[in-house]
């Protein structure tokens, strides 16, 4: 295994929305500081934005304010959010959107010259090329980028983060990178739970399948404090291909109907404990309607005229192109015409509808609020480490524009705290230890392929930690079984086997996923109430209990033993 050593001033781990923005901000403020992004894929098409995006869901239209935005987020998340973080995001949203528009992102405007609203806090964008646009800005600002290098661990020295180890995903090179400040921006975690599709359709999922929770795992292993891993994110999606329902519901005005064609949202609305939280409510009502025997549930698009249908298709191409293939297949199956409809789509037999279901659970800090426990300047609890984007917790509904703002804030803080002291030396022993850890699966023996261990993990999480097969429901005893099974699974990690460098990366990914999954289970066990339906539904504690649980559940993994300790933090972000 070849070893390559690199030094930089500011190291950014992950070149997605948050990482690209952090890098551009750093080079804008301090052009003479070195800034290096390491990226597991290629920054032109990596992470969540690889497919494209057709809306920005966090934007303040005229009449809205950071405070009104905070109120909305707080309401949606049952009162439990970090107000300081959400406000700091809200204050930066519009400027970052403007900046990306200047870089070339087409955004739809109304006759008044303002961005045209798509829902109260969203705008419609033509974002198929959003990721290449961000990557181009990074190149223009002379940021150094190391593509195809996956981070494997942070380097901790005397209580401070001084760099990171990376693995060349194609050649197995071990990178030892020293830095004066490190921003973690890797994204959240998919693949913890059994996905809805089998076999070669297993990666038709909502979240990027290569965002595997590595950012969380490396922080956990270095002793960083995490928050709200029990706040799993479950997306309401078009069944089978996991296409976005927002494009249909908000972009095309589709209704949610049951098998009989009845709108069911209103029916639950009166009695629902979560009626003020539309995102949870839409999912919960769909789960309940299916349970009552009135499934499948659909998004009904029969009202669309030909012109709207055409725009709807373009929106899908910009964000979820596989949905077009579903449209085409429907054409043949139902004798209907999704492709080039002759006149109007309206009223053509009621078949212009798509079945909707909940996705498997994910752990993210951009839609949900799981992630690093950070202060308002985006410092993590580890000195020298800052967090931004999906990997940073406490501030849900930040979406892409919120990730940009967090990237900016993290870069500003990191630059302020970088000094001119020489980079510390890194002991050969520490390098050797990481080299051994990451090369173990390449040993020549019959072991467990990473895919098998991944599927075992997903099965455990699905069955004992509230996956799709249990309709997300949780109880103490099952979670305790899950805890034991995950411990056994982790004990099997030394038996992982990789046949090549690609599989070696898969081995590292499943190791990271197991660490994240263990923390998810501990958080789910600890919160003894039901705060966020489906996301965190305890059958044994079915009610929301503000008197005891309007507080954050945080965790720290012991650096030496791997034991997970749970901490409580108040609403104000303090003890």
């Amino acid at each position, binding site marked *: 295994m070849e070893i390559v050593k690199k030094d930089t001033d500011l190291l950014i781990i992950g070149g997605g929305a948050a990482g690209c923005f952090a890098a551009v901000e750093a080079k804008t403020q301090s052009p003479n500081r070195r800034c290096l992004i390491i990226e597991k*894929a*290629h920054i*032109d*098409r*990596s*992470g969540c934005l*690889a*497919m494209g995006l057709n809306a920005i869901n966090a934007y303040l239209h005229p009449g809205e304010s950071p405070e009104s935005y905070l109120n909305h987020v707080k309401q949606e998340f049952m009162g439990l959010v970090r107000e300081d973080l959400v406000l700091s995001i809200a204050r930066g949203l519009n400027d970052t959107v403007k900046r990306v*528009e200047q870089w*070339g*992102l*087409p955004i739809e405007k109304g006759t008044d010259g303002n961005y045209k609203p798509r829902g109260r806090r969203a705008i419609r964008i*033509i*974002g*198929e*090329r959003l990721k290449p*646009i961000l990557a181009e800005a990074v190149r223009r600002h002379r940021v150094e980028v190391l593509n*195809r290098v996956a981070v494997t661990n942070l380097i901790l020295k005397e209580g401070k983060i001084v760099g990171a180890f990376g693995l060349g*995903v*194609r050649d197995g090179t071990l990178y030892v990178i020293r830095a004066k400040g490190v921003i973690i921006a890797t994204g959240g975690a998919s693949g913890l739970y059994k996905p809805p*599709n*089998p*076999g*070669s*359709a*297993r*990666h*038709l*999922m909502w979240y*990027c*399948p*290569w965002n595997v929770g590595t950012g969380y795992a490396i922080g956990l292993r270095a002793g960083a404090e995490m928050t709200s891993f029990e706040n799993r994110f479950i997306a309401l999606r078009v069944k*089978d*291909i996991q296409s976005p329902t927002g494009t249909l519901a908000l972009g095309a005005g589709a209704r949610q109907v049951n098998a009989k064609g009845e709108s069911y949202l209103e029916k639950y609305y009166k009695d629902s404990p979560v009626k003020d939280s539309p995102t949870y409510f839409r999912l919960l009502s769909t789960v309940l309607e299916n349970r009552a025997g009135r499934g499948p549930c659909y998004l009904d698009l029969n009202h669309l005229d030909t012109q709207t249908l055409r725009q709807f*298709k*373009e929106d899908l*191409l*910009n964000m979820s*192109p*596989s949905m*077009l*293939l*579903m*449209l*085409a*297949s429907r*054409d*043949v*199956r139902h004798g209907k015409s999704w*492709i*080039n409809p002759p006149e109007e789509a309206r009223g053509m037999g009621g078949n212009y509808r798509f079945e909707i279901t909940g996705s498997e659970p994910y752990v993210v800090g951009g839609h949900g609020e799981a992630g690093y426990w950070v202060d308002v300047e985006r410092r993590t609890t580890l000195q020298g480490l800052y967090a931004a984007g999906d990997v940073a917790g406490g501030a849900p509904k930040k979406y892409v524009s919120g990730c940009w703002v967090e990237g900016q804030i993290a870069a500003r803080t990191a630059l302020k705290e970088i000094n001119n002291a020489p980079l510390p030396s890194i002991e050969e022993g520490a390098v050797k230890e990481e080299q051994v850890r990451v090369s173990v699966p390449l040993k020549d023996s019959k072991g467990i392929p990473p895919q098998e261990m991944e599927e075992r993990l997903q099965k455990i999480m699905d069955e004992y930690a509230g996956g799709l097969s249990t309709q997300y429901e949780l109880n103490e005893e099952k979670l305790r079984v899950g805890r034991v099974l995950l411990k056994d699974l982790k004990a099997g990690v030394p038996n992982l086997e990789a046949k090549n460098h*690609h599989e070696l*990366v898969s081995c590292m990914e499943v190791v990271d996923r197991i660490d994240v999954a263990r923390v998810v289970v501990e958080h789910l066990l600890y919160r003894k109430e039901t705060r966020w339906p489906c996301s965190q539904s305890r059958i044994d504690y079915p009610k929301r209990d503000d008197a005891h649980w309007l507080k954050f559940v945080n965790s720290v993994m012991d650096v030496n033993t791997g034991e997970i300790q749970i901490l409580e933090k108040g609403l104000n972000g303090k003890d």
Partner: protein
Amino acid sequence: MVKIDYKVCNRCEGAREKRCQRICPGDLIGVNPEDDRPVVLYPEDCWACTACVKDCPVAAITLKLPFQALEKGDSLRATAKGRKTSWVLEGTDGKKEEFEITVVSS
């Protein structure tokens, strides 16, 4: 999953790293050293993101969905050129619909 049409693929004129290989976010594409063809090594891991479909300079790659999700052979082709991305959706019955979308403003 994506299909590479080797009658159209020009092996990126001998470039060491092929465009589809360079762009795939899952690093799922490799090159067969014997004939220099790009090969989807891990088709079961495809996210259907179409990054390779759009980036291919000769439009040799199409997106189809795996049978487990959708039991039809409809296909989607795309080309990213300049500020525009154009798409061709083709049904199994031969019906086509085309799109041209300006994705970068001037």
